[in-house]
C-alpha cells in the first residue's frame, strides 16, 4: 500500500506544488525543471509506456485470433498492420540514394540513362549535369527502396562514364526521408486513411446540423436563425443581399410573431402592411443602398454574432472550465481526490 498510495501521492504533491508555484519564481533551476526537465521526464515515461500499449494491443488481438472470437478477421488485419509498421520502422529502411561525383566525358549519355530510369526530361537533367561544378556532387531526386535497383542504375551510369556512389539513409532519419518504406507507407497508406476519416466529419456535421436546426423550441429556432445568418454572412453571396431585403423578411417575421402572440389576424396584417410601407418609404428616401443601415447587413450581423454573443458565451464556459480545472488540480495535488488511483 505504501508504494501504491503514499509514494504516488507524495510525488503528485511535490511536483504539483513545484509546478504551480514555479510559475511565479524566477530561480533558474526551478524554471528549467518546470519548463524542460519535468516535461522531458514525462516524455521518457510515455515512450516506455508505448511498449505496454503495443504489447496490450498484440496480446488482446492475438487472443481474439487464436480463440476465433467474433470478428477475429479484423484482428488479423490489425496484427498484420502492426507487424508491417514494425518491419518498416526497425528492419527495412530502403532509401538508397545515387550520388554522381563525376559526370565523366559523356554527360549526354549519363543524362539519357537517368532520364530513362526516372522519367524526368532529358534536357533538364543534361542542363543540371553540365552546370555541375568540378568537385561537386549531384544526388538524384529519385531514391530506391531496394538496393538491387539502385545498384543496377549505378552500374548503367558507370558504363556511361560517370562516377557514382550509393548512399543509404541512416536509421532514424529513414522515418522522414523520401524513398524509404516507412515514409512510403506514411504518405500512401496512413495519410489517405486519416484524411478519409477526417473527411467523414463533413457528413457528420451535416447530419448533426440537421438535428440541431430542426425547429422544436425557441432555443432551436434561435440557433437556426443564427446559423443561417452566420453561414450566409460568411460567403460572397451574403454581401450581395441588400439590407432592405433583410428588413422586409424581418417585417414578415414580426408579423408572424405578433399574430401568434395576440391571436389576432387583423392586427398582424396591419403590422405587416405598416412595416412593409415603412421599409419601402425609408428605402426610397435613402436610395436603397445595399449595406445601409449596417445593422441589417448580413456580413455585419454575422460579425456581431460571432464577436459578441458567441465570444461572451465561450468565455463564460471557459471561466467555468478554468475554475473546475483549478479545483480538480488542487484536490489532486493535496491528495483529497484519490479516486484516480483507484481509491474509493
Amino acid at each position, binding site marked *: 500500500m505504501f508504494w501504491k498510495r503514499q509514494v504516488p501521492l507524495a510525488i503528485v504533491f511535490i511536483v504539483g506544488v513545484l509546478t504551480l508555484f514555479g510559475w511565479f519564481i524566477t530561480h533558474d533551476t526551478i524554471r528549467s525543471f518546470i519548463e524542460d526537465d519535468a516535461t522531458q521526464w514525462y516524455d521518457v515515461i510515455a515512450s516506455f509506456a508505448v511498449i505496454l500499449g503495443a504489447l496490450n494491443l498484440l496480446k488482446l488481438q492475438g487472443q481474439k485470433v487464436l480463440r476465433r472470437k467474433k470478428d477475429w478477421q479484423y484482428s488479423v488485419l490489425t496484427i498484420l498492420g502492426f507487424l508491417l509498421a514494425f518491419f518498416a520502422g526497425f528492419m527495412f529502411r530502403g532509401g538508397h540514394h545515387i550520388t554522381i561525383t563525376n559526370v565523366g566525358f559523356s554527360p549526354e549519355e549519363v543524362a539519357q540513362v537517368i532520364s530513362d530510369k526516372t522519367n524526368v526530361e532529358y534536357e533538364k537533367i543534361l542542363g543540371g549535369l553540365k552546370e555541375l561544378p568540378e568537385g561537386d556532387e549531384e544526388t538524384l531526386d529519385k531514391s530506391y527502396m531496394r538496393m538491387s535497383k539502385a545498384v543496377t542504375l549505378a552500374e548503367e551510369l558507370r558504363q556511361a562514364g560517370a562516377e557514382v556512389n550509393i548512399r543509404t539513409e541512416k536509421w532514424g532519419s529513414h522515418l522522414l526521408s523520401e524513398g524509404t518504406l516507412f515514409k512510403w507507407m506514411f504518405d500512401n497508406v496512413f495519410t489517405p486513411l486519416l484524411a478519409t476519416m477526417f473527411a467523414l466529419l463533413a457528413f457528420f456535421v451535416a447530419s448533426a446540423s440537421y438535428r440541431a436546426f430542426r425547429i422544436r423550441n425557441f432555443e432551436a429556432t434561435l440557433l437556426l436563425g443564427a446559423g443561417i445568418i452566420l453561414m450566409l454572412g460568411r460567403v460572397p453571396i451574403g454581401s450581395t443581399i441588400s439590407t432592405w431585403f433583410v428588413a422586409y423578411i424581418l417585417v414578415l417575421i414580426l408579423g408572424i410573431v405578433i399574430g401568434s402572440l395576440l391571436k389576432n389576424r387583423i392586427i398582424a396584417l396591419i403590422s405587416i402592411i405598416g412595416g412593409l410601407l415603412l421599409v419601402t418609404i425609408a428605402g426610397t428616401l435613402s436610395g436603397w443602398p445595399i449595406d445601409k443601415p449596417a445593422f441589417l447587413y448580413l456580413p455585419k450581423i454575422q460579425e456581431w454574432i460571432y464577436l459578441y454573443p458567441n465570444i461572451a458565451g*465561450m468565455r463564460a464556459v471557459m471561466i467555468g472550465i478554468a475554475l473546475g480545472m483549478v479545483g480538480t488540480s488542487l484536490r489532486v495535488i493535496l491528495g483529497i481526490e484519490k479516486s484516480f488511483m483507484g481509491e474509493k
Partner: protein
Amino acid sequence: MSFRQTLMVAGALTVLFIIYWQLGHPYFNANRLVMFLCVIILSGTILYYIGKANRGEEIYLRTIPGLNAVEEAVGRATEMGKPVLFIPGIVDMDQVETVAGVIVLGHVARLTARYETELEVPVARSIVMEAATEITKEAYLAEGRPDQYRNDMVHYLTDEQFAYAAGVDGIILRRKPAAIFYQGKFYAESLILAETGNSIGAIQVAGTGSPAQIPFFVTACDYTLIGEEFFAASAYLSQKPALLGSLKGQDLAKFVVMASVILVLILNAMYDLGWIVFDITKIFTVQ
C-alpha cells in the same frame, strides 16, 4: 479549521508575504503578483469550504441531469444485456480533463460491477491505459465483484487521433453498446464518435473541458456535462464531503470572477471616457 482560525492563518501568511515583499522579494516574478494572489485566494477559498464540509456542514449541490443519467445509462445497458462503452478522451494523463475522465470511469466501473454489465474502455494512451486498468480493477474489488473483472476491459488502440476514432467507431458498430460515455479531452473526432453512437441508438453521456467540442456533443449526445459540471462529476457522484466542499469554494470563486468582470467593465469604461486616469486592465493582463 473554523472561520476564525482560517482568518488567523490567512492573516499570518499575508503578514509573512508582506515582510518578504518588503525585503525585496528575491526570486519572485513581480509581474505575476496579481495572478499569484488570485491562485492563493482561490485555493484558500476552496480549502476553507473543504474544511467546512469535513466538519459536517451540509453543502447544497444543484441537480446535474447529465450525472443523474450515469446510473440510468448503465441500468439501460443492463436491461438490454448490452455492453457499456467508456471513452476517456484522446490525450494523456498530463491533462486534467483526462484525470477527471478517469475519475468518472471509476464510478461507471462501480456501477457496471454492481449490475454485472459488460464494460469496455478503449484508450488512446498507454499511461491512461494503466491508470484506467487500475481504477477499474479497484472498482470491481470495491464492489466485491473481482470475478467480474476481465483484463481486456481496458485496452489500448492507438495514439493516432483518427485511427483511434476509426477503431472506436468499429467497436460501436460491431458491439452496439447500449450506453456510451465520452469523458475527457476531445478534438475533431468528437463528432465522428458521437454521431456513430447516435446512429446505433445508444444513450450517450458526454463531458469535456474542450469548449470547441461542447456544441458537437450537445447535438449528438443525450446528456452533456458543460464546463465545470464535468469537473464536478467526481464530487457529485461520490457525495464525499471534502469534494463537495471544494465545489462550494469553486462556486464562490465564480461569483468573485463575475463581480470582477463587472467591476473591470465599469472601471474600464470610465477610463475610456476619461473620468479616471487609472487603467484597470493593466492589472488584470497576464504577464
